[in-house]
């Protein structure tokens, strides 16, 4: 009887705790809320039509253009931008660079949410979304296909990141024994996660190996998997700088004094890593360019567009990072991170949408519904991110 009473009171405590945490905090009428709430609501209505009347009712996709911005931006770009999680966990837990320990939690959270929302957006794009479980349950799956590898890796990596983040949830729920147990699993989860990331970041590129006749030769090469992997490293680092800059302004009350002091050193270190990786990526691009003898492709509009991407959004931010690190200029690093992120978006959209079936007269353009749903996915992720950061010990202390 006594045991039942203890369990009941503990259950009541947990329910009250979660109820308190679910209540909104802070001001409601902020510019972000005013913009994001209508878009999320309209997006939900569009998703209703998408699932009831089919994918063709809200998108401009067809048999010739099966990949739109839901795949090109949400999935392919989103996963690249989430690369910071495996880079930072590798740096902190494997290379033992404790300087970056204070940003592990927020980076892993960012990566976890990015995978849940952006990779989860894959469900929206499947004509028969209930078939998404087929590769997992072994029902009519092509075990030698790249998509099989990518789908398993997405699932396993999401679980791995959830495990990496679980000590924070246990700390938030004041479950000390569970926190210690889960924290003990972190290193194994990190090593497993890095392995998965390397494979599926390149695996996403490998998906396009079979589309050789459809992708413009300036963007297609048999080294797409390598390029996707290398670019995901600096994409992740740039995303951490960009996201950290915004978090530092919005969540400054949640940051401990130590984080403020180390912030500059952390950003400079990330900028240094991004500069070196972008330099390597640029030379890989140059090597492929010469190896594939692409000189004759550079003299038309597609060639100029390619140069804009490679010089304007890879080489220029690379030099900006290097200059800013050398001169300890955080402002230039932040601008470089934005340019690098735009470059990644451009590269992934070029491969999946813009330079895809480049020879067609009637090109694919996303419908307004596709754009609204894409924004809805991004805004919803930010809402969840904000909810977690303001409640759990992610940035330093609990509110």
């Amino acid at each position: 009887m006594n045991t039942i009473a203890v369990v009941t009171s503990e259950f009541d405590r947990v329910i009250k705790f979660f109820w308190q945490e679910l209540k909104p905090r802070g001001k409601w009428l902020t510019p972000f809320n005013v913009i994001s709430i209508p878009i999320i609501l309209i997006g939900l209505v569009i998703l209703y039509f998408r699932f009831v009347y089919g994918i063709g009712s809200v998108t401009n996709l067809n048999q010739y253009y099966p990949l739109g911005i839901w795949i090109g931006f949400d999935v392919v770009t989103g996963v690249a931008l989430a690369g910071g999680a495996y880079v930072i966990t590798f740096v902190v837990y494997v290379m033992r660079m404790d300087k970056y320990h204070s940003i592990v939690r927020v980076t892993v959270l960012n990566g976890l949410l990015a995978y849940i929302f952006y990779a989860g957006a894959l469900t929206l794009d499947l004509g028969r979304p209930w078939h998404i479980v087929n590769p997992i349950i072994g029902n009519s799956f092509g075990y030698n296909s790249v998509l099989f590898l990518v789908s398993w890796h997405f699932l396993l990596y999401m679980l791995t990141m959830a495990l990496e983040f679980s000590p924070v949830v246990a700390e938030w729920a004041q479950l000390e024994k569970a926190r210690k147990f889960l924290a003990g699993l972190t290193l194994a989860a990190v090593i497993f996660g890095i392995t998965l990331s390397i494979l599926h970041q390149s695996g996403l590129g490998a998906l396009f190996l079979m589309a050789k006749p459809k992708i413009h030769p300036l963007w297609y090469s048999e080294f797409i998997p390598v390029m996707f992997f290398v670019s995901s490293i600096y994409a992740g680092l740039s995303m951490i700088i960009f996201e950290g800059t915004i978090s530092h302004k919005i969540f400054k009350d949640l940051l401990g004094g130590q984080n403020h002091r180390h912030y500059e050193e952390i950003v400079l270190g990330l900028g240094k890593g991004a500069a070196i990786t972008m330099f390597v990526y640029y030379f890989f691009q140059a090597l492929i360019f010469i190896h594939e003898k692409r000189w004759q492709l550079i003299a038309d509009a597609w060639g100029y567009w390619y140069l804009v991407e490679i010089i304007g959004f890879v080489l220029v931010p690379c030099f900006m990072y290097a200059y800013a690190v050398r001169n300890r200029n955080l402002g230039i690093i932040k601008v470089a991170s934005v340019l690098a992120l735009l470059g990644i978006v451009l590269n992934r959209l070029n491969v999946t949408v813009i330079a895809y079936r480049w020879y067609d007269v009637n090109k694919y353009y996303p419908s307004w519904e596709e754009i609204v749903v894409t924004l809805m996915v991004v805004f919803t992720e930010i809402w969840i991110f904000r909810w977690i950061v303001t409640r759990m010990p992610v940035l330093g202390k609990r509110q």
Partner: protein
Amino acid sequence: MEFYTYVNIFETKGLEYLLLMSFFALFIFLVRYLSGAGKKTSVHEEKR
């Protein structure tokens, strides 16, 4: 009729080798350049 010549760096992989060598040389330069960072005072210290 096309014919192969050993002195044409476009036909051989000469250009690729040159690019790789310049990459390694510039990479060393970049790392040394970036390692020189930190000699200046930090942004916070400058503000003070």
